[in-house]
């Protein structure tokens, strides 16, 4: 059988699954298709740290044979995927994007990887990330990841490789991890869908921990339906992660009715109208609010002034938790860290514990106010990021003063961090492009464990627009 054309690569995972089930495309075809694209495009994009081509081909042949013999096929049967190199995958090293990595192959899969494999998905390899999933990396030891919409721009972090590989169709879907926006940010910057689920809905067993109280694994996909499809596989209690919820997992795809008539949407002023939000981004978000209104949703502006402190509170909690895990290496191997990571972790190591506790109290207050807002609204709407993807060079500049540090590290994370602090689900979907041709993301957040409503709203918006159908120029070479 000849390989399908590259157009096939850009189909949604749900569409590909239907083709596989109908035996119109085989798992071997799909694996060869994506491996070919990785070979052709990834030297420039640097989405992958490790490609396991031989294993992928072997698993694809086995999947094809099993299917031919009438073996049960899971919902992701034959779909090639890739995973952020923060999660263990049996037989592969886990670098966490750092020189301080162990070449020893993992003994077992992270639970999320195991569940995707059990559902029939085929692992292609492991994806680039900011060092230790912290963001702000200056020097990437496995190559500088590049935005497929413009090679001089950042793909977002920390799940940058996941954003690139999804946008450039180097896999049917990818897996990322979101602490303060590490799925939603790359999704926004790369023009794809990224879902952060409720904290505790998805197991983190077998993942390198960035911030234990906020890390959430989740999908980056080309459509909202795909996000629902993959979430359905990932979600649910795991005996290996005692912090996972025991709630039953609802049928997420069934929620994608397209009906948002009467849906109450709160447009968060502080995450849309503040001076820190780029006018082009703000315009795109307001247009998106208009689309939802035309679909029958009731959109009203709300104000959550407490969110002004969310960036600082997030950094105090996330960085303190991360620094606590790095003390031994900071003492023994400081030179092996990326410069920015090392300085960030040094700083957090010296932060007074009283400030960490104040940040935790602020977090409880932020959570309380977000939940109060969600008492009167089904979803909260805002920009995902303050601006489109920044140039890569701008993040390598030295920090020259305290105001410079304040501007760069304690302001621009605030759009995604409030929902991380609150532990509620949030999704980013494409909602436009900047004048430079870079994607803009719309963020929708909802009540804890109510991913269905978040997905329903995002899907209705997506289906009413065409932003998700565009292809990045660097993915067509």
């Amino acid at each position: 059988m000849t390989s399908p054309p590259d157009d096939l690569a850009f189909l949604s995972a749900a569409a590909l699954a239907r083709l596989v089930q109908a035996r119109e495309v085989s798992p071997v075809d799909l694996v060869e298709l994506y491996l070919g694209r990785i070979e052709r495009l990834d030297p420039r994009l640097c989405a992958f740290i490790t490609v396991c081509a031989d294993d992928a081909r072997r698993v694809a042949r086995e999947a094809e044979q099993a299917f031919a013999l009438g073996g049960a096929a899971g919902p992701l049967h034959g779909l090639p995927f890739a995973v952020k190199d923060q999660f263990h995958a049996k037989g592969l090293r886990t670098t966490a994007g750092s020189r301080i990595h162990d070449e020893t192959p993992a003994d077992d899969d992270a639970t999320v990887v195991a569940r995707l494999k059990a559902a029939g998905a085929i692992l292609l390899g492991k994806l680039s990330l900011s060092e230790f999933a912290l963001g702000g990396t200056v020097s990437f030891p496995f190559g500088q990841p590049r935005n497929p919409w413009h090679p001089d721009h950042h793909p977002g972090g920390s799940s940058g490789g996941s954003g690139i590989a999804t946008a450039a169709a180097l896999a049917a879907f990818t897996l990322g991890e979101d602490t303060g926006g590490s799925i939603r940010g790359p999704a926004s910057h790369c023009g794809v869908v990224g879902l952060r689920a409720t904290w505790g809905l998805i197991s983190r067993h077998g993942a390198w921990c960035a911030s234990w109280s906020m890390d959430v694994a989740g999908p980056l996909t080309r459509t909202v339906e795909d996000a629902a499809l993959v979430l359905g596989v990932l979600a649910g209690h795991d005996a290996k992660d005692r912090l996972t919820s025991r709630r039953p997992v609802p049928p997420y795809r069934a929620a994608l009715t397209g009906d948002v008539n009467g849906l109450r949407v709160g447009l968060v002023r502080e995450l849309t109208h503040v001076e820190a939000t780029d006018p082009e981004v703000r315009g795109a978000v307001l247009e998106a609010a208009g689309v939802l209104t035309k679909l029958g949703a009731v959109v009203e502006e709300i104000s959550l002034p407490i969110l002004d402190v969310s960036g600082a509170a997030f950094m105090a909690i996330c960085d303190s938790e991360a620094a606590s895990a790095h003390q031994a290496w900071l003492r023994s191997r400081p030179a092996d860290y990326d410069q920015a990571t090392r300085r960030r972790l040094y700083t957090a190591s010296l932060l007074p514990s009283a400030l960490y506790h104040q940040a935790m109290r602020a977090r409880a207050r932020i959570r309380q106010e977000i939940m109060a807002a969600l008492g009167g609204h089904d979803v909260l709407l805002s920009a995902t990021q303050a601006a489109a993807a920044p140039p890569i060079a701008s993040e390598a500049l030295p920090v020259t003063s305290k105001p410079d540090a304040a501007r760069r590290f304690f302001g621009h994370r605030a759009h995604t961090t409030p929902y991380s602090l609150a532990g509620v689900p949030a999704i980013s979907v494409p909602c436009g492009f900047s004048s430079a041709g870079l994607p803009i993301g719309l963020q929708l957040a909802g009540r804890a464990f109510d991913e269905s409503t978040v997905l329903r709203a995002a899907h209705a918006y997506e289906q009413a627009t065409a932003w998700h159908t565009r292809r990045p120029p660097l993915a067509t070479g």
Partner: protein
Amino acid sequence: MADLTGVDVEAMGRALGLGIAADDLVEVTHRLNAFIEALAPLAELAPDGPEALPAPVDPDRAS
């Protein structure tokens, strides 16, 4: 509140066993001073707010 100096930060690092090199010291000092300043508004939040939970195990019920 006066900003910490490089000498202060170096000494704090040494107390933790962190040998912060001269190349890093200037930036770490700027970052730490900015961090502490950014967190100052948190102290002004109403003291009768919700307690910090040890973990948001079930955010649905947390308030």
